[in-house]
């Protein structure tokens, strides 16, 4: 891919990157705390990952290998264009392989393959405030965080059980970080929540429109909120991936035709492709 001339390395100027790095350092120092930062206009609309892109730009070095996923997939529009953006403005190596990447920017998923200590996971966050839909006043939510008054978060879970008989929140499921701050893990499925706990990789969260950065340092306790008699549970799937036969992974439903044909495949495309390259083959592939 041809490099863009006339731009600083990784698009943002050095002053801006320093400002963002300071926010990131503060976020790491106070796990789960939302640090305000002077979010910039980026050459993409809000909601397309402007926060994640700014965090990635601030931490990217020349030797980094970047992977970008959108809903677990490496080849959807958002992932392709952000990957291309950094390939052109920073000329860093890009990859789709989870284990080769040093920086992984993600929207809505955590890769299935275990992350390691030399990796950074950057989340794109639309609404960083977990209490937002219960308490619209920002002054009040800050107060609640400052005083660790999180009873309100349980009111939401209570409402779920009262209405549906179980905790029906399936994404953006609130977590308590390092025994202190309650955090929105961005709209990842709650299936991925356990992966955040004690994770060797650094996890950074960027919300561009809301101008907040927060972080989970490596090997930090991340606990999903629940009730004693309604403990936290992840989704389960009653079948393996139709392509690679993987079990215990997060599946996407894919419609095949107008007649109701469908199959369930890995949402993490890289995980699926690697498994197929390594041998195990799913039911559909066996029938083909």
């Amino acid at each position, binding site marked *: 891919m041809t490099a863009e001339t006339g731009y600083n390395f990784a698009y943002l100027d050095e002053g801006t990157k320093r400002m963002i790095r300071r926010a990131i350092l503060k976020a790491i120092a106070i796990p789960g705390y939302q640090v305000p930062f002077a979010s910039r206009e980026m050459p993409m609309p809000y909601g397309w990952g402007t926060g994640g892109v700014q965090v990635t730009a601030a931490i990217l070095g020349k030797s980094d290998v970047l992977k970008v996923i959108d809903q677990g997939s490496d080849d959807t529009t958002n992932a392709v264009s952000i990957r291309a953006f950094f390939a052109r403005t920073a000329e860093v190596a890009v990859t789709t392989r989870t284990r080769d990447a040093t920086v992984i920017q993600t929207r809505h998923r955590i890769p299935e393959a275990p992350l390691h200590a030399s990796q950074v996971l950057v989340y794109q966050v639309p609404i960083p405030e977990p209490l937002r839909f*219960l308490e619209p006043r920002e002054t009040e939510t800050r*107060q609640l965080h400052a*005083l660790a*008054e999180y*009873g*309100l978060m*349980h*009111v939401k879970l*209570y*409402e779920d*059980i*009262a*209405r549906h008989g179980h905790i029906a929140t399936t994404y953006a499921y609130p977590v308590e970080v390092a025994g202190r701050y309650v955090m929105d893990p961005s709209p990842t499925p709650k299936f991925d929540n356990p992966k955040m706990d004690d994770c060797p990789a650094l996890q950074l969260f960027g919300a561009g429109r809301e101008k907040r950065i927060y972080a989970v340092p490596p090997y930090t306790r991340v606990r999903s909120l629940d*009730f*004693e*008699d*309604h403990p936290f549970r992840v989704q389960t799937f009653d079948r393996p991936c139709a392509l690679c036969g993987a079990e215990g992974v997060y599946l996407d439903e894919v419609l095949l035709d107008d007649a109701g044909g469908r199959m369930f495949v890995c949402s993490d495309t890289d995980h699926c492709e690697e498994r197929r390259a390594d041998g195990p083959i799913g039911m559909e592939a066996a029938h083909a």
Partner: protein
Amino acid sequence: MSAPLLQARGLTKRYGARTACADVSFDLDPGEVLAIVGESGSGKSTLLSLIATELAPDSGHVAYRMRDGVIRDLAALSEAERRALMRTDWGFVRQDAAKGLRMAVSAGGNVGERLMGAGARHYGTIRGTALDWLAKVEIAADRVDDPPTRFSGGMRQRLQIARNLVTGPRLVLMDEPTSGLDVSVQARLLDLIRGLVAELGLAVIIVTHDLAVARLLSHRVMVMRAGRVIETGLTDQVLDDPAEPYTQLLVSSVLAA
């Protein structure tokens, strides 16, 4: 006689040149019901806000005897202590139920919020307690999952009462809890409040412009006019034999049915 539960001394609040509340002092004993009466604009609600620490007084202070028996100046509490006190040992029943309730959250969630705020993490227990309290305020068990937006005005006030009383507070502030309700609903609500106050031994400060409410609920009455307390005494004494001309006027203004 034990020490008073709450002491207000010289509470004064001005809005610019206007004085909303001037040099108000009183003691409130545990289990005592004090009515603050007066016409609109007499400073009743400002006084209640000062006591509830929602407004800072220009001068004066409020002291409260905490559960451990220590008397603390409310202005000297840390924000965390103040909020913890307000949601456990105090209650505030507001005139407008929408300000005292979470309108988007079910009745059970409204009652359970204080419990969860206090650290309850067992759904079954929280729900059981919420159902108990709804029964006490005469809300049918099958309405537990309805939001207050689907409740009548009287039900909303009763739900507010349940939400406030669930943590076993010792002091409840009430700001015109029955205004805007029709007469028969008012009567039932007053009956309910009177029963709960007696049963739980609550201390109550109730602000009302309705002298009938004061007579029915309160032990003592404070009459306010233009920000000042002009008369105070036992309820029957003040209402049957008012000393001040203004109080005489208030009492004689009540329409007989």
